C-alpha cells in the first residue's frame, strides 16, 4: 500500500467515519427508543416514514432544520451559541479513542478501527465528558431565564457528583489491567481469560448506574424533568441548536454504553475468546460483537425509561454521596488489596 494512502487517506476516512458512526447510532437509537417505549406502553409508535418508521429521525431533523432559530433578547449570544457546539464537539471527540473492533490486516498494512491511540485514552474520555458540563451550564446561564437556570444548576450538581463514582470505578479497571489505554484494556481481557464485568461486578454496577445518571437519562433525567422544568437547560433553544443537544445526549448514551462494553465486557471480543471449541464465534467480525453488546446496553436504557418513575433531586444526590461513592471507594480498596496480594 502506498504511503500516501496509508498516511493521509485512511486517517481522513477514519475521521469521517467517527463522525458518521455516532450519528448512525443516534438515528438507530432514536428510532429504537420510540418504538420500544411505545411497545412497552401498549402503543404503536412511529411507523409511517420508511420501513417501520426507521426514517422518522430524518423527518424530525428536517423539521428542526426549518424551524425558526430563536435567541431571546436578554440572552448572552456568544455563550448561547457556544453551548450546543461545546456539548456536541466534546461528545463526538471522545469517540476518537474508542476501539470499535479488532485491527484488520490488509496485506502488510494493519487497519486499526480507532482514530487515536493514547496511553491515557480513558482519562481523556472522562475529561471530555466533563467539558460537556460547561456546555450545559453555559446553555442554562446564557438563556437568562429561570427554568433553564434551575435545570442547568441541577445538571451540574448531578453530573459532577456522578463523575466521582465513574472515575473511581474506572480506576479499579485501570488498576486490574494496568493500563488506561482502551485498546490495551480489551487485549488484557483477552489474555487474562475473563471479562472485567465478572471480575469486578461492583465496579460494573456502579459504573452503569452512574453512567445512566451522567447522560441525564431516566430515572435520573431531572435536569430536563419535563413535568417540572419543562425542558431543563435547553428550554429556550429551538431549531437546530436544540437538535444539537438532543443528538449529543443520544451520542453520549452510545458513548457510555461503548465504555461499559470496552471496560467490562471485552469490547470487540466474542464470548470465551480463548476456548478452542467455541472458536467459530470468531467468524463474526469484532465490530459486530461490539455492536451486539452495546445494543444490549442501549436497549436497557430504553427499558429502564419505560419502567421507572423519576428520582427527586435530593434523593438522587443522596444516592450518589451516601451509597455509590462509599461503595466505589471500598471497592477500589478491595481491588487494590487483592490485586497486590494475588
Amino acid at each position, binding site marked *: 500500500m502506498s504511503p500516501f494512502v496509508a498516511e493521509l487517506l485512511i486517517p481522513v476516512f477514519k475521521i469521517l467515519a467517527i463522525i458518521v458512526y455516532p450519528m448512525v447510532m443516534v438515528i438507530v437509537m432514536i428510532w429504537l427508543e420510540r418504538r420500544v417505549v411505545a411497545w*412497552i*406502553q401498549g402503543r404503536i409508535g412511529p411507523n409511517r416514514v420508511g420501513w417501520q418508521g426507521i426514517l422518522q429521525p430524518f423527518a424530525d431533523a428536517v423539521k428542526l432544520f426549518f424551524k425558526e432559530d430563536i435567541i431571546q433578547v436578554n440572552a448572552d449570544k456568544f455563550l448561547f451559541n457556544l453551548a450546543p457546539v461545546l456539548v456536541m464537539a466534546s461528545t463526538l471527540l471522545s469517540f476518537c479513542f474508542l476501539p470499535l473492533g479488532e485491527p484488520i490486516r490488509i496485506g502488510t498494512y494493519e487497519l486499526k478501527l480507532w482514530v487515536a491511540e493514547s496511553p491515557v485514552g480513558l482519562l481523556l474520555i472522562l475529561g471530555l465528558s466533563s467539558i460537556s458540563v460547561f456546555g450545559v451550564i453555559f446553555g442554562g446561564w446564557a438563556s437568562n431565564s*429561570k427554568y433553564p437556570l*434551575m435545570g442547568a444548576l441541577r445538571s451540574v450538581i448531578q453530573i459532577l457528583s456522578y463523575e466521582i463514582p465513574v472515575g473511581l470505578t474506572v480506576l479499579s479497571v485501570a488498576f486490574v489491567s494496568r493500563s488506561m489505554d482502551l485498546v490495551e484494556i480489551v487485549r488484557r481481557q483477552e489474555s487474562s481469560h475473563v471479562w472485567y464485568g465478572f471480575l469486578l461486578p461492583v465496579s460494573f454496577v456502579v459504573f452503569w448506574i452512574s453512567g445512566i445518571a451522567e447522560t441525564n437519562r431516566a*430515572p435520573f433525567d431531572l435536569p430536563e424533568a*419535563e*413535568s417540572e422544568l419543562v425542558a431543563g437547560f435547553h428550554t429556550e433553544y429551538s431549531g437546530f441548536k436544540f437538535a444539537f443537544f438532543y443528538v449529543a445526549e443520544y451520542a453520549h448514551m452510545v458513548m457510555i454504553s461503548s465504555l461499559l462494553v470496552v471496560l467490562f465486557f471485552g469490547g470487540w471480543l466474542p464470548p470465551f475468546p480463548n476456548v478452542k471449541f467455541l472458536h467459530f464465534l470468531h467468524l463474526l467480525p469484532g465490530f459486530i460483537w461490539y455492536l451486539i453488546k452495546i445494543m444490549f446496553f442501549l436497549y436497557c436504557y430504553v427499558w429502564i425509561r419505560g419502567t*421507572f418513575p423519576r428520582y427527586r*433531586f*435530593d434523593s438522587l444526590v443522596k444516592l450518589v454521596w451516601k451509597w455509590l461513592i462509599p461503595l466505589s471507594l471500598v471497592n477500589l480498596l478491595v481491588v487494590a488489596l487483592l490485586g497486590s496480594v494475588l
Partner: protein
Amino acid sequence: MAFEEIELNMGPQHPSTHGVLRLKLRVDNEVVLGIEPVVGYLHRGMEKLWESQTYHQIVPLTDRLDYIASVSNNLAFVLAAEKLAGVEVPKRGQYIRVILTELQRLASHLAWVGFMANDIGAGTVLLYGFEARETILDFFEDYAGARLTVHALRLGGVPYDLTPENTAHIRAVLDGLPAVLKDIERLLTGNRIWKQRTVGVGFIKADDALEYGLTGPALRAAGVDWDIRKRHPYCSYEDFDFSVPLGRNSDLYDRYLVRLEEMRQSISIVRQALDRLPEGDFRAKVPRVFKVAPGEIFHSIEAPKGELGFYIRSNGTDKPERIKMKSPSFINLQSLELMCKGNLFADVVAILGSLDIVLGEIDK
C-alpha cells in the same frame, strides 16, 4: 453564595399544571416558600350562563365542568333540581345512575393514576391507565353516543334503558379492570423510587384539611371518614355494600392507595347494581317545560374529586334564578400552599397532581 428568594411562574402554559392553571411560586433555591394559584384562564361564565337556560338545557352544560367525570356533574345537578321540584326517580333509574357514575369514577381515577404517575416520571402508567379508561369510554359511547361529555343523565332518570347487551358490555369492562389495577400496582406500589417520591410528601393535618374544606380521596387519606355516599346516601347508595378506604399518613402515597382501593370498591358496587337491577321504569314522567316552584336547595354528591354540590334558587319559571356550584377541584386547590410549604419544587407538581384538579371545574 447567599440564597435569595426568587419568584417563579409556573404556567399557564406548563406541561403539568393540568390545564391553564398558573402558580406563582416563591422559591429559595429548590425549597418552596409560598404558592399562589392564579385561576380564571378557562372562565366561561357557566353560572351566569345557566340563568338563561332551562333546567333541561343546563344538564349537558354541566358535562363541560369536570370533563374527566362528566356523568358525576350531571348527577349532582339533576339530583339538586329533582329534589327542588320533588321528582321521584324510579328504582331502576336510580340503579342505572349508580352504575354510570361509578363507571365514571373508575374512568376518572384511572386517568388520575396515569396523570399522577406521569408527573412523577412514570409515563408508562399513564398509557396503562388510559387504555383501561378507554374501555369504559367505549361503553359510554355505546350507551349514550359520546365519550367525554356524555350527557348520560336526564331530569327524572336516564335517557335509555340498560339492554342485556349493555350489561354484558359493562361486565366485560369490569372483568378487564382488575388485571390493569394489578399491573399498575406492580409498577408503582412497591417501587422504591415511587415511595421516595410519595411517602411523607404533601402532608396535611386532618384538622387543617377540614378547615380548608378539603374533600374526596385527599381528605380520606388524612383519615377522616367522610364519604357522602355513606353519610347522606343518595340514589339508593344505602342498598349497596361497600367500604370507604381510609389513609393514615395523609401523604401522596396514601392518596394513591385510597384511590386504588376506591376503584376496587366501585367495581364491586357496579357488579352489585347489575346483579340486583330492579325491573320497572328507568325514567319518571317529567314535563318538557320543567317549572319549579319558588324555593332554594343545596344538594351534593361524592364526585370522584370530592364533594360536588349545586345550590339552586328557583323563581317559579322553567329557568333557575341563580345557581352556585361547589366544585371540589376549586376548594381542594386552596390547601395546595399548606401542603407544599417547605417541600421541594419537584414535589409541587406531584402534590398538585395528587389533588386531582380539573380546570374546567375550577374556572367554571
